[in-house]
């Protein structure tokens, strides 16, 4: 029996293997095809539409740009009417350039703050008794059961000069006059940290929970005090979680619109708000599309760098 199984592939007359038969092969391809089709229809095609609009010119019409393309054949005949003018315009006006930079800085600072707060939470959860871990996990996910918009609105009530936070601090005589938090960058940071904390905690938790605690004991045993063992063992081993968590917070935070709009006040210059203004107030679809395409490139490049790094780490077998 064993001999037959070994020699069969060599002779080239091997019957189809039972476990890898025809029907399972089709099924597995079908399973892979579903997400690809999803991405094709709901990401790639919309992206090309946006990209096409970004190459158009604004016009007072319906839709508010030219040329309007009807069908594939039409696309080729009108190809000469497309231009990169909108992208050149973006580099000319310092408004966009500053909005991009500020978005990245605000998202970066907020991501760092989220990491600072999220790490101890995830660590505490991973070290908690196994019986209460599901409960803790539930608590982290619980805020998602309320609408994101309502939760951000609620922060206005907390942060405004006569809001809950100031009333509380003044009743304790910690401050004499209300703190101005709403409509400052601090309110944006608070909003982002609050909203995106679960996205930081969950990947951190999963990488910390996997870690073998004996490694810390081994480090202690070799003369390494607990705090030092954290930086030499725990933190490096949780890096995949740190990177994943930071990506999950940073990427949506860069393009965030609701939080800066509601908490950051009207003067906040972030790319999400700029895009909104361009699209709704100026009705300039081509320029706002160009802003969106550049934003996407800005975010895709770091992700690709990250994935390259991760693939390399995986090759090493980590």
């Amino acid at each position, binding site marked *: 029996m064993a001999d037959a199984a070994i020699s069969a592939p060599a002779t080239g007359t091997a019957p189809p293997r039972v476990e890898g038969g025809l029907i399972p092969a089709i099924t597995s391809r079908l399973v892979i095809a579903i997400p690809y089709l999803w991405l094709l229809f709901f990401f790639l095609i919309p992206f090309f539409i946006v990209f096409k609009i970004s190459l158009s010119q604004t016009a007072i019409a319906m839709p508010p740009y030219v040329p309007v393309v009807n069908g594939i054949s039409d696309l080729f005949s009108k190809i000469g009417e497309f231009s990169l003018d909108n992208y050149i315009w973006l580099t000319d006006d310092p408004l966009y350039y500053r909005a991009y930079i500020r978005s990245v800085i605000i998202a970066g600072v907020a991501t760092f703050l989220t990491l600072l707060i999220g790490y101890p939470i995830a660590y505490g959860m991973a070290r908690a008794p196994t019986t209460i871990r599901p409960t803790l996990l539930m608590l982290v996910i619980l805020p998602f059961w309320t609408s994101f918009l309502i939760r951000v609105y609620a922060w206005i009530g907390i942060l405004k000069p006569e809001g809950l936070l100031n009333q509380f601090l003044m009743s304790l005589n910690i401050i004499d006059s209300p703190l101005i938090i709403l409509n400052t960058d601090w309110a944006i940071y608070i909003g982002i940290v609050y909203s995106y904390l679960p996205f930081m905690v969950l990947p951190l938790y999963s990488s910390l929970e996997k870690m073998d605690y004996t*490694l810390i004991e*081994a*480090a202690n045993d*070799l*003369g390494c005090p607990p705090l030092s063992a954290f930086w030499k063992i725990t933190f*490096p081993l949780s890096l995949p979680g740190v990177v994943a968590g930071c990506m999950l917070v940073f990427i949506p935070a860069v393009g965030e619109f609701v939080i800066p709009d509601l908490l950051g006040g009207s003067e906040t210059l972030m790319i999400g708000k700029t895009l909104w203004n361009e699209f709704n107030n100026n009705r300039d679809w081509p320029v706002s599309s160009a802003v969106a395409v550049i934003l996407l490139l800005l975010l895709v490049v770091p992700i690709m760098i990250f994935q390259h790094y991760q693939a390399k780490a995986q090759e090493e077998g980590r």
Partner: protein
Amino acid sequence: MESLGSIRRSFAPWTDPNAKPYIVFDGVTKRFGDFTAVNNLSLSIFEREFFALLGASGCGKSTLLRMLAGFEEPTSGRILLDGQDLRGIPPYKRPVNMMFQSYALFPHMTVEQNIAFGLKQEGMAKDKIAERVAEMLKLVKLGQFAKRKPHQLSGGQRQRVALARSVAKRPKVLLLDEPLGALDKKLREETQFELMDLQQNLGLTFVVVTHDQEEAMTMADRIAILDKGEVMQVATPAEIYEAPGSRFVANFVGNVNMFEGKVKSRNADEVRIAGGSGAEILVHNAGDAETGKDVAFAIRPEKIKVSSKKPANGAGNAMEGEIYDIAYLGDMTVYHVRLPDGQVVKASALNAARVTEDPLSWNDRAWISFSPDAGVVLTR
């Protein structure tokens, strides 16, 4: 019986009343909630000793080791190392190192970095560290694997890295938690001897936890048999095997035949035991067994001779029975002989010759015989 201890080596500080023990467990108790893992345990271990803690899982042996390493504090009692009370000293300040059962190698560091980890903590100079790491790699024969990460090594290689890392700091005491547990049988046998050589060459005190009695017998100078958090017996492997102190120890280590009975008469050191079936057993060196006491006579299978005819020598013990089962193991054959009272006695015979002169078969009548000093009388 006094000579048993010297079979292995002439190293025997525990026989010297003036020798000062190096590690002392003094009335140590450890409770986890309601569960008592270690119960009022006292034990002395000497410098340069290879000491094994042997017991089934849950007997408290690992807890004992973890208390020595500093990962657990005793609920009560003291642990002394070289005269110093270890209470309150954190693991990173104790002059002991541990080799973990799972090896606990740092996955993000190379073999070299793993071994250097403890030395860096000490603040040793860079060139000194490199020197020591090279020396350790040579010791465990892993020189060409220095730049590899743990996941690129085989189980046996990982075990040796763990060993190198734990001895790199030259600890006063090395603690080994099931050091060979994850290795296959052949590798385990080789590594046993490597460990013994290493201990001899470095002159360290080894405390090893194991559930494998063969491992403990091969490597250790002395073995402590633990059960339910208490020490049942501490002795050399030969004493444990040949002179177990209780029924538990006799049963736990190796194979044994037990005859329960009463002491019928005693003449100096010579005792006659009457078994349940009326058969009498004559024993020399009977210890403290007094007349009328319930005792057990324990004898190892290889000390019982099986023959088809009644042995001529009248001085020994002989009983007639029936061959109930035969297990041929290659190097020896184990006969299971059923006595008239139903007890089945195991007797093993070395297959020194390829053809035996006295072939025995299933259901044959057979005689078992043994000399008066072949077994021990157990009162506990």
